């Protein structure tokens, strides 16, 4: 009875803009504290259109969730919308006609003009049609430092990677692990890629991952990166955690000096009530080379038979891109908005640094956009082995790296 009443009240309150409201199941892997808060913003905005967001969170990072999503889509029982990372994860699903073409919505709302950088929309475009709505930009190239840890060790907070490496012995002496790296393979791989941009620069990164130039991958520039990775490996010894946010937590609590992690780590600092500049320091591009990548997430919409749901999918797509949602979502998530025409005055210092770099156009496309999932998985296998096995020399690792790049697609 009460439920019925609630429904009646709710429907009376809604502006009668929408005749065909529908429930839309949305799957994603945003389950950490800051992430869940951000999803709530999305859901709230979508519910306000008269439709209903049915939350289908699957915990345990994309690696756990994606297989389930893909099985559902190929099995013919798709959800209403699903998160994927920017890039090629849904490429084949779209090619085989399993996904909804959003070109009409995109043209109506002029996504081409508002979405910045343009590479985001490019990743959504397959055979000239747009298949996804980008929701945020995340960048990997950040070094998060615990001010408290350096105070304990009695050294100044480093301003770049080299100073950080130099400060490592002092940290160790104070019983602090210099660099926290979690055990999940994507974390060590990400750290390596970040080191590559910081040390060898944007061009080398492009040559290796975009052009798949095996000669560069085997060359002296990348050898320097492996040398740095070797340092990172030594500095991370003893960080016995799995999840990225457990590693972030080590930085928050001052048990570790720093962490190379994407800007999503910010959400964890915010949740722990820490202030950028006071409690922690963020160095984009490791303080060496201020370039950020355009990783992040986009929503894809499987092709549904139900006309009302299809309509709701288009509503969700335009909700995601709308300015209000972009602000609310990205502030909670700690990510950057996908459009350049909105004002993030409430952003904190680190986000502002990111926005500046973005505005200057110092961006590279993410490895998710450049490489197939298969090649990335091979790299993950390599780097998780390298970071866990001190016996593996940088030379040997580089040789395998070059082989994987040579065969990559």
């Amino acid at each position: 009875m009460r439920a019925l009443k609630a429904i009646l009240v709710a429907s009376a309150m809604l502006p009668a803009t929408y005749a065909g409201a529908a429930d839309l199941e949305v799957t994603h892997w945003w389950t950490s504290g800051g992430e869940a808060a951000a999803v709530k913003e999305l859901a709230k905005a979508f519910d306000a259109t008269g439709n209903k967001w049915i939350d289908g969170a699957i915990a345990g990072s994309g690696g756990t969730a994606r297989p389930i999503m893909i099985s559902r889509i190929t099995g013919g029982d798709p959800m209403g919308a699903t998160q994927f990372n920017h890039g090629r994860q849904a490429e084949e699903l779209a090619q085989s006609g399993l996904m909804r073409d959003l070109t009409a919505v995109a043209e109506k709302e002029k996504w081409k003009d508002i979405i910045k950088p343009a590479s985001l929309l490019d990743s959504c475009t397959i055979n000239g049609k747009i298949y996804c709505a980008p929701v945020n930009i995340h960048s990997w190239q950040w070094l998060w430092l615990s001010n408290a840890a350096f105070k304990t060790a009695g050294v100044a907070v480093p301003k770049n990677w080299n100073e950080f490496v130099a400060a490592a012995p002092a940290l160790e002496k104070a019983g602090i692990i210099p660099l926290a790296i979690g055990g999940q393979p994507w974390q060590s791989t990400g750290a390596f890629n970040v080191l590559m941009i910081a040390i060898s620069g944007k061009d080398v990164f492009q040559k290796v991952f975009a052009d798949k130039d095996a000669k560069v991958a085997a060359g002296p520039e990348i050898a320097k990166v492996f040398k740095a990775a070797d340092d990172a490996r030594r500095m991370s010894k003893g960080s016995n955690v799995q999840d990225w946010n457990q590693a972030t937590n080590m930085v928050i609590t001052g048990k570790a000096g720093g962490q190379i992690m994407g800007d999503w780590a910010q959400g964890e600092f915010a949740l722990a009530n820490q202030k950028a500049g006071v409690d922690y320091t963020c160095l984009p591009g490791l303080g060496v080379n201020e370039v950020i990548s355009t990783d992040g997430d986009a929503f894809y919409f499987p092709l549904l038979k139900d006309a009302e749901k299809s309509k709701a999918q288009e509503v969700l797509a335009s909700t995601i891109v709308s300015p209000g949602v972009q602000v609310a979502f990205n502030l909670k998530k700690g990510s950057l908005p996908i459009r350049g025409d909105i004002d993030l005055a409430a952003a904190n210092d680190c986000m502002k640094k990111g926005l500046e770099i973005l505005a200057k156009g110092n961006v590279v496309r993410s490895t998710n956009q450049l490489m197939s999932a298969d090649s990335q998985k091979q790299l993950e296998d390599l780097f998780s082995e390298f970071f866990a096995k001190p016996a593996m020399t940088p030379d040997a690792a580089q040789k395998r790296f070059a082989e994987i790049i040579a065969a990559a697609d």
Partner: protein
Amino acid sequence: MANISTLNTTAAGLDAVSGRLGSGPSGARPRKVLSQRNIILYGLLIVAALYYLLPLYVMIVTSMKGMPEIRLGNIFSPPMEITFEPWAKAWASACTGLNCDGLSRGFWNSVRILVPSVVVSIAVASVSGYALANWRFKGSDVFFSILIVGAFIPYQVMIYPIVILLRELGIYGTLTGLIIVHTIFGMPILTLLFRNYFTSLPEELFKAARIDGAGFWQIFLRIMLPMSLPIFVVAMILQVTGIWNDFLFGVVFTRPDSYPMTVQLNNIVNSVQGVKEYNVNMAATLLTGAVPLIVYFVSGRLFVRGIAAGAVKG
């Protein structure tokens, strides 16, 4: 499910039929109470029991501590202040994504998946085992051998073919589909057990029924079934455990609104919000394991009896 007291009386009555199957220990006889032998015997058993109990102890103790106490670091020390908050949180308010209702939402989904899956898989496997044991036909052993080899195929390998199969049948994402999947993967071991059990039953009974003119189904329903309680208990226990604990099929072959409890468990355990809340994780773990654990505690005795019947005779 039949109620337990009936099970027990039926089982007791069965002893008369199956003779030594359910009989007591048959090893060397014990002598004095405090003999050297007894000290070694019980000493070994107690040491082993401690090893098996340790994790349970850790789980229970941890689930009743607060997070500050857990950070002190001794996982074996009993809680200084007992709290049931982690249990309440795990059951009713732990979050994944937007849903903050803990394990509770998954419990009834699990039951809804469990009951029909257990019933159907056991029904199918028992009939197959019966046919293999008593009504062999040309080729039946070949199919059975394939089935046994099938027991060794990792589930992950079969996901794709099964997705395609269910899609073609048009039942992907439905409860029917999931029941079929559980039936398929429970079949090899269950059929093996039932086949062995029915083979072990006295052949004279079967022959006598044939002389009386009873057929396939009649013999199965009137003669075999009433004698098969122990093996049904074993099959039930194995299936309840397997299906209740299943995560992979539950998450791949259903939708979020009917995810089983293990999916919520995974979500709670894997969505770290800041610090890992070990106490909530442990409470969630125990809550999820409660159903099979209760089944074990209640029917453990029948389990050995049934296994004795199903596995011993080849």
